[in-house]
């Protein structure tokens, strides 16, 4: 019998089509898994058992009538808590939105519902997507299923851990500087940041609106392609949405899985490696390069000299936009309202509410952004950073003349220990060194597992970048590499992850005491 818990979404679709299982049975399977392991992993902030099962029953009815709504109809999914879900809490990992239930769906969520994917719940994240470890969540960190004492990456650590711990076959993430790809790398899963504008941002609570992009999180490259096709495409409600069809992405993945990359030019980015990169991560990266060559690809070294300034440009543009976007949390129309003693003015209430509702990292970035946008500093910081963005785009253009795709390790290191970098912002920021350039230029990128680093036995990620609107190349190259690697490993990398076996009582033991229930469920909101 097929192990549906560990099967790919594509295999679940095949089982549904063959009538071997039902969406209700699959949804129950994943809900039970969440119940069994999430007290240890804490990937979810909210689980919607009732809603998911109702959506699953509707899916089964459609399929029985011979009219599935999409290829993925009936396959359950988890959604990052930064996307608005009508009737389901949406906190963005922040106290300022505790208990907020949006009156509308994000376009991505609308498309998931229209396509018939039951929504299991909302996944944990760094507050307002600010972080690389999910430790900045106001509701406590998510733990890496490979080692519960380590971070799952961030900001989308919840979505990546949910998929890695087999709590969901698919998830949605968002990527502003690497928040889909870096968690993918450190949890041994697949994550894709589409071309900026390729997936609607309507209903995605903005951190840095010129960089934010929602995308798929999965265990296989094909599954991400299938999900990307469901959520992608033009949306008139997002003025930055691209008016182009999403493209034949699953077809590209299937073609890539044949393992033939003859004629493909792969550019290795000189600047994304060396100092600061863990030896085992680089070794794993090199092994993947060898496999690409064995599949017929030609390696070329490319130089992107402006990439060394990407981190600095990012840490000016992102906080600037965030400080502006987060101004809407003013305690007047929704969210936390703290009323100080006496006869406070609206402004006093605002100040007190924002102090109580925002966590340390959010405050750091708002202050930094306010500084960078201040008179006398604007040209020197924000203005210059926007120019550096142009230089980075030009580097990409030049590199894509020499190569069809560019590659690098996704993150410089494997998962670090919880708490290790929590109060050292700069050390934390360095995790996104290799992922940030794609956000600044708007080009698409994928991370897929390249193996385990020799020094710690933890997953490392392989990043593929393509020109804007050429997202199909990510899937072709990603699927080819995945096929070659799995042949070498004798199966998926996640098969080597610890089992999180449920002990007596159905719950996983954990190293630290749980001070609160790991997630809320519909009907008993915190």
């Amino acid at each position, binding site marked *: 019998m097929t192990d549906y818990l560990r099967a790919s979404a594509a295999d679940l679709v095949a089982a549904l089509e063959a009538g071997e299982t039902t969406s209700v049975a699959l949804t129950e399977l994943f809900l039970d898994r969440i119940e069994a392991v999430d007290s240890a992993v804490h990937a979810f902030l909210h689980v919607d058992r009732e809603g998911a099962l109702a959506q699953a029953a509707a899916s089964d009815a459609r399929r029985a009538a011979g009219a599935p709504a999409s290829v993925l109809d009936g396959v359950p999914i988890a959604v990052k808590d930064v996307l608005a879900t009508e009737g389901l809490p949406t906190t963005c990992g922040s106290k300022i939105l505790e208990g907020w239930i949006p009156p509308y769906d994000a376009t991505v969520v609308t498309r998931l519902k229209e396509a018939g994917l039951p929504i299991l719940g909302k996944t944990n994240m760094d507050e307002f997507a600010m972080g690389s470890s999910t430790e900045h969540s106001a509701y406590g960190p998510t733990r890496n299923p490979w080692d519960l004492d380590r971070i799952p990456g961030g900001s989308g650590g919840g979505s990546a851990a949910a998929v890695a711990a087999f709590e969901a076959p698919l998830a949605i993430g968002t990527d502003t500087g690497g928040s889909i790809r870096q968690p993918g790398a450190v949890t041994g899963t697949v994550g894709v940041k589409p071309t900026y504008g390729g997936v609607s941002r309507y209903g995605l609570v903005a951190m840095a609106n010129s960089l934010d992009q929602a995308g798929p999180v999965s265990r296989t490259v094909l599954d991400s392609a299938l999900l990307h096709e469901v959520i992608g495409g033009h949306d008139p409600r997002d003025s930055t949405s691209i008016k182009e069809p999403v493209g034949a992405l699953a077809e590209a993945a299937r073609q890539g899985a044949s393992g033939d990359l003859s004629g493909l030019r792969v550019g290795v980015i000189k600047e994304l490696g060396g100092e600061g990169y863990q030896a085992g991560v680089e070794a794993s990266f090199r092994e993947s390069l060898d496999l690409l060559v064995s599949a017929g690809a030609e390696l070329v070294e490319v130089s992107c000299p402006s990439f060394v300034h990407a981190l*600095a440009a990012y840490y000016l543009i992102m906080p600037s936009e965030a400080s502006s976007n987060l101004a809407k949390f003013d305690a007047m129309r929704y969210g936390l309202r703290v009323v100080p003693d006496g006869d406070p003015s609206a402004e006093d209430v605002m100040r007190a509410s924002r102090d109580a509702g925002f966590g340390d990292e959010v405050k750091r970035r708002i202050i930094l952004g306010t500084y960078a946008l201040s008179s006398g500093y604007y040209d020197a910081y924000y203005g210059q950073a926007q120019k550096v963005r142009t230089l980075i785009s030009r580097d990409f253009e030049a590199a894509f003349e020499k190569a069809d795709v560019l590659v690098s390790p996704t993150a410089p290191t494997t998962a670090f220990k919880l708490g290790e970098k929590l109060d050292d912002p700069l050390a934390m920021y360095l995790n996104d060194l290799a992922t940030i350039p794609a956000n600044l230029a*708007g080009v698409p990128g994928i991370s897929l597992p390249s193996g385990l680093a020799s020094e710690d036995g933890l997953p490392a990620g392989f990043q593929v970048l393509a020109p804007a609107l050429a997202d199909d190349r990510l899937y072709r190259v990603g699927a080819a590499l995945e096929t070659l690697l799995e042949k070498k490993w004798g199966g998926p990398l996640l098969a080597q992850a610890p089992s999180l076996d449920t002990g007596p009582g159905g719950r996983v033991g954990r190293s630290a005491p749980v001070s609160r229930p790991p997630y809320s469920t519909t009907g008993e909101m915190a």
Partner: protein
Amino acid sequence: MPEIPGSSSPRGTSGRIEISRDEVAHLADLARIDLSDAELEHLAPQLSVILESVASIAEVAADEIPPTSHALPLTNVFRDDVVTPGLTAEQALAMAPASEGQRFSVPRILGEEA
């Protein structure tokens, strides 16, 4: 754009960037966040370190380089001028901290001296 009193223009890569506790307090004021003394003490040195690490940017791009604000050039994006449903007043007010009639209820807006 708000002015930062008492601060000099940003320095290049070589100079140390210090952001004082008072400057952080002023920025927090502009950002409408009450920060406690402890938070100010904690944030000021961290912000100095971050600013120092991004300061190199001031000397990177030449004057003639145009700024990029969006990854793909899109201008004047309009949708068709057709009526689409919006939120009802009840939906919009459902999550308000306080409401009265069909409106958001807010604390007094004017200060004592106004």
